[in-house]
């Protein structure tokens, strides 16, 4: 069984305790909401997009340490970035969060230790994601976000980690 230290890294807890970019933005910033129907976590993304760039972003909602820290780190990582860069980063993040051969987080965490080890090996070998090559250098642009890598070992929590990213993608779709 993977240890909790793989999940609750200090940097994750720091973002959970002191969420960055927390708050709201008035229109014309767009607002999108994401829900995890399994556990009730919710994320609100306020994104101010000008000339295909996220010029400002604020996060709202409530949930567990994983969903909230992922949202906080994401807000830091995407602020000021072009939409293309954000899409690419989202692809990289989701690749980091995916188990090979499965499009989405499995409903139950019945994966054997061997499966999880295989997932880790594959993830670092770069063939984890559905976006070709996305996971090749997972640590380069990920920064703090790579602290969330351990979530893959706890498959039920993957949905928590990707919730804010999916909500941001929706905001980008709305804006473009």
């Amino acid at each position, binding site marked *: 069984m993977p240890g909790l230290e793989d999940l609750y890294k200090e940097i994750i807890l720091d973002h959970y*305790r002191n969420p960055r970019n927390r708050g709201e933005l008035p229109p014309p910033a767009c607002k999108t909401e994401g829900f995890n129907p399994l*556990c009730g*976590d919710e994320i609100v993304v306020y994104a101010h997009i000008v000339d295909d760039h996220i010029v400002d972003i604020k996060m709202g909602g409530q949930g567990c*340490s*994983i969903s909230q820290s992922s949202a906080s780190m994401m807000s830091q990582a995407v602020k000021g970035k072009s939409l293309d860069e954000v899409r690419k980063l989202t692809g990289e993040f989701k690749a980091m969060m995916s188990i090979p051969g499965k499009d989405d987080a499995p409903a139950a965490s019945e994966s054997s230790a061997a499966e999880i080890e295989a997932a880790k090996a594959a993830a670092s070998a770069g063939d984890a994601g559905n976006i070709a090559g996305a996971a090749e250098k997972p640590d380069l642009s990920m920064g703090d976000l790579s602290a969330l890598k351990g979530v893959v070992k706890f498959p039920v*929590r993957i949905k928590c980690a990707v919730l804010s990213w999916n909500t941001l993608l929706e905001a980008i779709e709305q804006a473009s």
Partner: protein
Amino acid sequence: MGIDVSSIKADFPIFDRQINGKPIVYLDSGATSQKPNAVLDAMDNYYRNHSASVNRGAYTLAAEANDLVDEARQLVADFIGAPNTHEVIFTKNATEAANLFAHSWGRSNLSQGDVVVITEMEHHANIVPWHMLVESNGIELRWIPITDSGELDLSELDVLLDGAKLVSVTAMSNVLGTMNPIRRIADAAHAAGAIMMTDGSQYVPHVPTNVTEMGVDAMIFTGHKMLGPTGVGVFWGTTELLEAMPPFLGGGDMIMQVTKEGFTTNALPHKFEAGTPMVAEIIGLGAAIKYLNNIGMEQVREHEVALTAYALRSLNERFGDDITIHGPSEPASRGGALSMAYKEVHPHDLSQVLDQANVCVRAGHHCAKPLMQVMGVNSTARASLYIYNDEADIDALADALESADDIFGMGF
């Protein structure tokens, strides 16, 4: 004589299992219960020795399968004090039973402006089917509020019942453990000209149940929370109600006659059981009821009141203000569903930490989102008790809770 938990545990093969070298502390029976050998064997025996379709063949095997289903239906009827066996309708689960009622009775009896009264502590299974009737039939949905202590606030009941056609209330909350005064509400509903349904999903597995004494016209419940398998639930209604209801699903078994021009319906209970039923699951539910009857439902209830009392006392003594256990504080007026908040640790994180000690609790909204909104939270961690739990399980929960401090200690 109380329940001998260790001999009960020995009947449940799952407790032979260890995860990471440690036993399982199963505190999620409110979501689904574990299954004793008696249930597994009964289902296995059907498939191995009596497998045949029911209601159709004249040969010996088919007759045996029929007998097994009839026996199970009789066991269910007796277990809930149903006056007639044909009033027990097998469904997939409680959710399907609620939908059967909403679809069949609701669609044909409710129209624009008719009132259905439910409560703020309902499971989605007793909410969404009525929301659907708001959309399809234009009914009005009214909510009995809850008090701060998690009980129904019945002070305005008469006002809420004005114009009501149906009142549908859970007998026991799956989040708060609250046991509601079903008889009192049923009497008030009838006086106001409404019929009364109760959701027995959390009640029937844990408390001696008699639908006649409860004064209800209909009840739903689900097999997998009462030691039975998944895939079987029950809709019970009075003969009068069921006779007046149009069929729900159409197809084989539910018909008396089919011509090119139309069909006529079969007698109860078959009128509401279209298609090949879940024979093995029905037999499994019958075996679960036999198992519970052998222990005695009075004993089951007594055990859970005592264990709930121990849990409330020991957790509150050990953690004081660091723990909040929602719902009524008096063990005798509640069931063993213990929703809690521990310090500021999010329920999802809490259940992850507890999992390290194989302590299984459920974190989430428990399919009761309107209740979560009223409580002002978006989720809780819930431990829920059954016959195979004992004080050691509560102690294991408490120890595991404390280990959350190692990770979430400072600043939370």
